[in-house]
């Protein structure tokens, strides 16, 4: 076994990740290799040193402070929503008026356009009409035109 492979097996052996055959093979190598025996000791020391490390502790009030912070954030969010709704309410009349003006303008404009079309059709009618019509017809036609316009 090469030392390069043995080093990897040493790390696994420390975590009890080797099969029986692999352990046997590793031990045979360690018996012959001073360098790898040192590596084995070093890796074990690293693991011990880390596992013995004193863990940091949180303050006793940590959980309560997290819950408190969450509630604060939720209240802040709710307040923002209320401000937005109040803004909408306050400006609703203004917004509604604005919408009404737009809608009314649209209706008036579309009606004007329609009247223009009627006037154009009527003008064309009269142009054609003058060539072919009696006085009585003219009178009847005027009544109809009046009705069309209004």
């Amino acid at each position, binding site marked *: 076994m090469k030392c390069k492979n043995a*080093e*990897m097996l040493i*790390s*696994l052996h420390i*975590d009890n*990740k080797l099969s029986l055959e692999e352990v046997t093979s590793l031990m045979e190598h360690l018996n012959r290799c001073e360098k790898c025996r*040192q590596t084995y000791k*070093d*890796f074990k*020391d*690293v*693991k011990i*040193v*880390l*596992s013995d*490390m*004193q*863990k*940091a*502790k*949180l*303050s006793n009030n*940590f*959980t*309560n*402070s*997290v*819950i408190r*912070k*969450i*509630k604060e*954030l*939720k209240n802040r969010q709710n307040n923002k929503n209320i401000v937005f709704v109040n803004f909408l309410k306050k400006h609703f009349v203004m917004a509604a008026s604005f919408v009404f003006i737009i809608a009314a303008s649209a209706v008036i404009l579309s009606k004007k356009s329609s009247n223009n079309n009627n006037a154009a059709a009527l003008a064309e009618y009269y142009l054609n009409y003058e060539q072919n019509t009696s006085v009585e017809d003219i009178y009847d036609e005027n009544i109809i035109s009046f009705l069309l316009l209004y």
Partner: protein
Amino acid sequence: MNDKDIIERVIAGQEDLFRHIVDRYKDKVLSIIYSFCGYTSDCEDIAQNVFIKIFYSLDKFKFKSSFSTWIYRIVINESINFAKKRNTKIVSLQANFSNDEEQEVIDFIKSDDNTEKKAIEKETQKLVQDTLLKLKDNYKIILTLRDIENFSYEEISQIMNIPIDTVKIRIFRARKKMKQLLKEDNLYEM
């Protein structure tokens, strides 16, 4: 109550139950953060922010992995982000001892010879912590998860989202590097 029950109830509006999640995971969360922040007062703030982020992300958790795996992934990402922002690389061991802490160690030694051993242990702890901070992020995380928090290889594989063979190789390389750095700091006899 298991995690799933708590999560469903918290999402449904029983937000106070979230404290059970905090209590269950806060120690391990802090341990991971600690490996990135060291002896700084930021650790608790970061831990608090992590739990707030978890709270607001609960509705996104779909139970495809275990809840603990999901939490630790968030912690690791937040810790890495924090370290990047703060650009924390411990260069000098002395920098980690404030004047007050140094004085405390000296006073310990002077006041009672029997506590000399405790003072040395305290100093050793700090030096080991500092050495851990010098490692690159992946090595830091894997040694924290394996050697400090005792996660299995399979758990580490899920948390870090890497194959088990990569876990094995990374642990090996991290230990090798840690060993080299400890030697350089003359922390223990080689």
